[in-house]
């Protein structure tokens, strides 16, 4: 049963991350999409850092916690979205995708 949850988690998360990554790859993300993408990134990183460790996704969880923290501050208005921040977010998301894929292929329950 855990293996099934894990598989579902992996597939859903990967799809979501790749979706976000695609958006961030756009030349310049229009300002009116910032709030939506910030919410999405917060949600997915919250999901990974909360659920990931239970399912053996440790390294990706650590990275996600950082994203979560940053986007928590963005949501609450304490931090602003800058092009640099989006760029680093893209780097982080790519690193998460890599980590989560590696962790998915390595560990079995």
């Amino acid at each position, binding site marked *: *049963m*855990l293996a*099934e*949850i894990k598989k*579902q*988690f992996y597939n*859903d998360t990967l799809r979501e991350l790749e979706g976000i990554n695609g958006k961030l790859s756009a030349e310049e993300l229009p*300002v*009116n999409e*910032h*709030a*939506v993408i910030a*919410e999405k990134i917060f949600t997915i990183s919250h*999901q990974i850092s*909360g*659920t990931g*460790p*239970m*399912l053996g996704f440790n*390294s*990706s969880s*650590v*990275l996600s*916690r*950082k*994203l*979560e*923290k*940053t986007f*928590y*501050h963005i949501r*609450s*208005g304490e931090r602003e979205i*800058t092009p*640099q*921040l989006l*760029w*680093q*977010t893209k*780097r*982080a998301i790519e*690193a*998460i995708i*890599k*980590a989560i894929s590696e962790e998915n292929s390595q560990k079995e*329950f």
Partner: protein
Amino acid sequence: MIDKFRAKFVEESMDNLHDLEEALFLLEKDMENKELIERIFRAMHSLKGGGAMFGFNHLSDFTHHLETIFDWVRNGKLKVSTDLISLTFSAIDQINFLLKTGDLSKEEDIQNQKVFIQRIQAFLTVTNSPSDAASVNTASDQEAGESEEKSYLISFIPQKELLQNGTNPLYLLDDIHALGDALSIAYTHKVPSLEVLDASANYCIWQVLVSTAESINEIKDVFIFVEDECELHVDLIAETAIVGQPEVKALVSKALSSNILLTPDDFKKGQWAPKSQQPAVRDEKKKVAVKEHKISSMRVSSHKIDELVTLVSELVTIQAQLSLYAENNEDPTIVSLTENIQKLSRQLRENAFDISLIPLQSELMRFQRLVRDLSKDQNKDIDFIIEGGDLELDKNIIENLTDPLLHILRNSIDHGIELPDERIAAGKAPKGTILFKAFHSGANVIIEISDDGKGIDPEVILQKAIHKGLVEADVQLDKKEILDLLFVSGFSTRDVVSDVSGRGVGMDVVRRKIANIRGEVTIESEKGKGTLISIRLPLTLSIIDGLLVAVGSNQYVIPISAIDKIYALEPSQLKQSFNNVVVIDSEQYPYIDLRKVFQEEEKESAEVIQMIMVKAEDKITGVIVDNVIGEYQTVVKPLGKYLKKQEIISGASIMGDGTIAMVIDTSRLLHNRKLKK
């Protein structure tokens, strides 16, 4: 998706307006108060920004003009006056209107707004004082200054763990080069020789000189996701672009050959750095300010508390592993150390959980406003009474509770409380009452929402359920079972989705959301008299006392609070049973075999059958497991939406030895069984 954010924006803006109004009242009494002015400015600023982001263009335009006014005020270009405050008060009404209606479409409204904006602008021109021209100049000076390149020294001193979670520092350094002319110095003298190299650790330190027009924050943003794993300093070293100058190159090669890091002071001697002393001075000022205050309480971001609780939870898990190890090793020193650590971690845990409790009160404002607004909309007269608002609950529980509570309240207003004349006709007072009551009951918190409205007619519910095919036409159900149908997914008492409580979400969602925070919700109702919805919640989400059991090759945790008794039965007692009902002490109990539930193979005949008697909703049901391992205090981690399919699991827990046990949601387990029957 965007609609959800829009709604959220409106909701938050309403809160913002409330704040704004309050600040304005205070400003009227203290017109020079800078803090209040700043607060008002910021509120306008976020309304403007948010408005534009969420498609409230008229709102954004309108607040833009107000923002300008308060920008002037805070820069001393305009004085606060009673007129200005009155204007702002009426502006708040207009903002309220714009938030509710969205962009204006009626010609009349558009004209009104135009006139209003002219009033604001008039304010700006009338008070246009001579000092104004000067300030405009400074502003443009500043802008010109900002666009010029400055030079910074970045010292990036990562910890050894930097590379462990997929960070590639080469990219970060590359990104700095994208900001402007840059020169990286990599210090590799700490890399050890091959024999002792930990190949996946980081040993390098970098300093980067960069000349850029970007702000210092833009530079720091490059390192945003590694800031926990490094020491980072960004110092302004010159007001001009100096990267590439020969003196700089000389400094760099000296640093490289000596392995001594450059300091901002090294650049002071150069003629290019007239203002490099500024940051240091500012730091000192900060220190002084901190010393002057003694702080008795402080605000901490909820995120930090979440982190603390997570860390403490992890500590509890590790501590359990340590205890297990100590038990097996019989080393008296380790045993006594372990006991001390156990004590400490228990205290720490209690402390951390105590910190994460917040009073329910914090959410009650929203409920009050909801009741007031909705009852006005529907011409209903409702008294909303709150008891026990100061009760404290886990922050995460409160967060997850708000939506279900709002939904229940909407239901009460929309379907429960009647219109005044209907109430008079029914012999009731024209004013209805909704009572919100929160209180402790053992290790639980109970929240009750009751109204004296028209109640629920069980006959209507039953017919509806039959009509929808949720139950057979000839089914025999008592009243409680009928009301329970309200929580079945696919049930909705109204065909027409109402504007208020409908929205396609039913009580099934309420029950699911409450179950997610390990709560139970029940409903009682008397036709003509009213409805009572009762929610039973745990005090905290993260730790439960559980009974560890084994089924097949897996371990599960059953919350102790749900367990009545444990019996060891003879297999023959089950063989005589019929329709999954067992007789113990001449009482009949239905039972569930967890092997079947979790689709494990049939067990070969055991000598003793372990049956755990679990109570939920006043009923006791037997649950058969392979083995009872023992009591266990455990940290529960939610598995979120990945458990929707596995409804009967409410979370998972890491055992002392690192294996995983899943926590069984007993009320769902029993509930599912009932439905199948």
